[in-house]
């Protein structure tokens, strides 16, 4: 794809929400997500000559956004930020609670309690509306693994949502 700066700007405008949302929902922090999303678009700018169409570019953006956000998540975990408050919920998952949580809706907050691989698969399924087969191709993951991640993640989220609702109704 040979594009002028104006055409590249139009692509960024069209796909900024998608890329930012993937990064934000994997990372849970708006600032870091914005940085990661910008890096993804700059990488796209360098890669554009090798991409055949905008559909190809869109699939590329989705895949690279998932990978770069997961990399950032790993780097953050390696830093072991002790300032973060941690709690262990009933499902045995550790969740970091930061000041970003109020910015997120209930489902986004629950999504953050999932392991990163399940979180990524859930985003591609419910945010990007991809079928399990397409997710397997995009993430280069066996189809059975994608299906198992999806099934397990939905079960976990449903159980957590029900518990949250009960706690809310108890007051």
């Amino acid at each position: 794809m040979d594009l002028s700066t104006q055409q590249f700007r139009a692509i960024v405008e069209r796909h900024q929400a998608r890329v930012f949302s993937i990064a934000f929902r994997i990372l849970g922090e708006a600032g870091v997500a914005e940085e990661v999303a910008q890096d993804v678009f700059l990488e796209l700018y360098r890669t554009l000559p090798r991409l055949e169409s905008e559909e190809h570019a869109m699939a590329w953006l989705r895949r690279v956004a998932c990978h770069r956000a997961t990399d950032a998540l790993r780097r953050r975990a390696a830093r072991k930020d002790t300032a973060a408050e941690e709690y262990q919920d009933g499902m045995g998952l550790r969740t970091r609670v930061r000041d970003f949580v109020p910015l997120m809706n209930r489902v986004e907050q629950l999504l953050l309690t999932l392991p990163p691989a399940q979180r990524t698969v859930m985003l591609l399924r419910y945010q990007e509306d991809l079928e399990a087969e397409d997710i397997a191709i995009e993430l280069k993951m066996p189809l059975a693994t994608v299906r198992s991640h999806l099934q397990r993640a939905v079960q976990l989220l449903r159980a957590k949502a029900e518990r949250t609702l009960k706690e809310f109704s108890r007051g």
Partner: protein
Amino acid sequence: MVEREGVEMDEFERELREQLQARSAPAGFVDGVMARVPERTRRGTWWSIGNVAPVWRWAVAALLVAGMVAGGVERDRQQRIAGERAREQVLLALQITGSTLRDVQQKISADGRRESGQRDAGRNTRDEAVR
């Protein structure tokens, strides 16, 4: 029970879809990206071919190849001319050497004949004196 669970899953999945609609990027996101696009790449420099139309890229490539081929042909022609000139010089040198050798050979033969004639004449004179 299975049906109830299936319905619940569908409703829950619908809620997931609704809640996970893509959210807007922060204000100024696009400007932030464009500001980080390298200036040199954005403007395009005389050596960068990123913004050149494919037709012109092929034309330039074809010209370069044609130039290289023409250069190669010209170099071959000059080498052939130089080779022929060298061959002619060697042949001329051989011709000169050949004619010089012939002259020397003829001179040596003529000297030899003269000496033997003188020797014969001297021997006849001595014989007559003895008689």
